[in-house]
């Protein structure tokens, strides 16, 4: 089927899909940037938040950081395979990345369950409000990325639309980068 899609933009020299991903990420920077900047300024103005922050579990945060870093590694290996035209290998690495996403969400669910049972709910105080909002928005991005990756992987397995492996990978690395900042902000600065 002939698709009426322009694949390159002469003005930028960047393939259309990839340019679109950069635009998505620019808007994501504004969304997460506004949220995290608000958190930072309130945290500086409220020394008592350190009391609440001391209850977050650094080891769980670190484990999830490791999971996301690893999933970024498999995502870039998928891209590498796709560049060589090896759709099956690309799909295999993408499924490993999806596995990382699921592990991340599973760990996060257990962590939150424990915290909510301890009484650290979203309305407990300002720190916990930011904690659940920022990590929650990030978790939604993880879930969305995993779903999109499943579609891309399904096509890649048949050797189709291999350029999308890179596109979903760029998005995935961005989700990883957000967590790289959330981790010290929510778990280490105590």
């Amino acid at each position, binding site marked *: 089927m002939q698709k009426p899609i322009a694949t390159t933009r002469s003005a930028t020299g960047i393939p259309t899909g990839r340019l679109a991903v950069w635009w998505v990420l620019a808007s994501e920077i504004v969304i997460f940037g506004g949220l995290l900047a608000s958190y930072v300024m309130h945290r500086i103005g409220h020394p008592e938040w*350190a009391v609440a922050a001391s209850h977050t579990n650094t080891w769980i945060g670190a484990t999830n950081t490791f999971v996301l870093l690893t999933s970024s590694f498999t*995502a870039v290996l998928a891209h590498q395979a796709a560049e060589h035209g090896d759709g099956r290998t690309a799909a295999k690495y993408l499924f490993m990345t999806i596995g990382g996403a699921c592990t991340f969400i599973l760990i996060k669910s257990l962590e939150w369950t424990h915290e909510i049972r301890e009484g650290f709910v979203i309305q407990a105080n300002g720190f916990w409000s930011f904690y659940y909002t920022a990590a929650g928005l990030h978790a939604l991005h993880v879930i969305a990325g995993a779903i999109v990756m499943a579609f891309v992987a399904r096509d890649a397995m048949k050797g189709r639309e291999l350029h999308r492996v890179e596109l979903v990978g760029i998005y995935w690395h961005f989700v990883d980068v957000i967590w790289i*900042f959330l981790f010290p902000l929510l778990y280490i600065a105590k």
Partner: protein
Amino acid sequence: MSEQHHPDYKKIYVALVILLAISVAGPHVGLKWLTLITAFGVALVKANLVVENFMHLKWEKVVAKWVLGVALVLMGLFFAGVAPDVMEHTGDRWVNNAAIAAVARGIPDEEEEGAPESGGAEQAAASTETAAAPAPAAPAFSPETQFKQVCSACHGMEGKGDGPGAAGLDPKPANFTDPAFWADKDDATLVKAIREGGASVGKSSAMPAWGSLYNEEQAKQLVAYLHTLKGS
């Protein structure tokens, strides 16, 4: 997909994991400045490694960098514009009573019940030592500490009505060292003013109601403290 750039992904991944280990180990040294570097400095390095090598921004056309860069600048503008009002709780002509009360309570506004009366900043700093411990035991109520942390924003450290928040107020905050102030006020009136606000006793509504912060007994102790300012 025409241009193919393959840095050694494995090496970068290993570097990222080592940096993660450093950021976890950082706070165990116990130096605040070092923790800031291992937490946020390392995060910047990690993010840069991912963006440059995994997202291939290093080899991307410059326009993509501009798109992302402008978004980052917007974020910086937002922070620079808003942060000064949020990070400080008193300015030349304003006082953020709610924020001061939240810090003094050791726990922000929303939670009234069971809020420990903690010493604010010092308490928070001290509790970082006992990371996993439950909420620290409430220290004894000290009217002097409360006065210096909360009331002094407008009434001044010595109660002369010359705190940083006083500049923007008219009428001026009460001067507790002035005999004229004490001439027409009994303790019950002052307790009411503290707990229900200045307007409740026919004085300036700029004096907020602190009833959520101090119970009747604590307000009485504060009034007793005000009496000690008289002579100074």
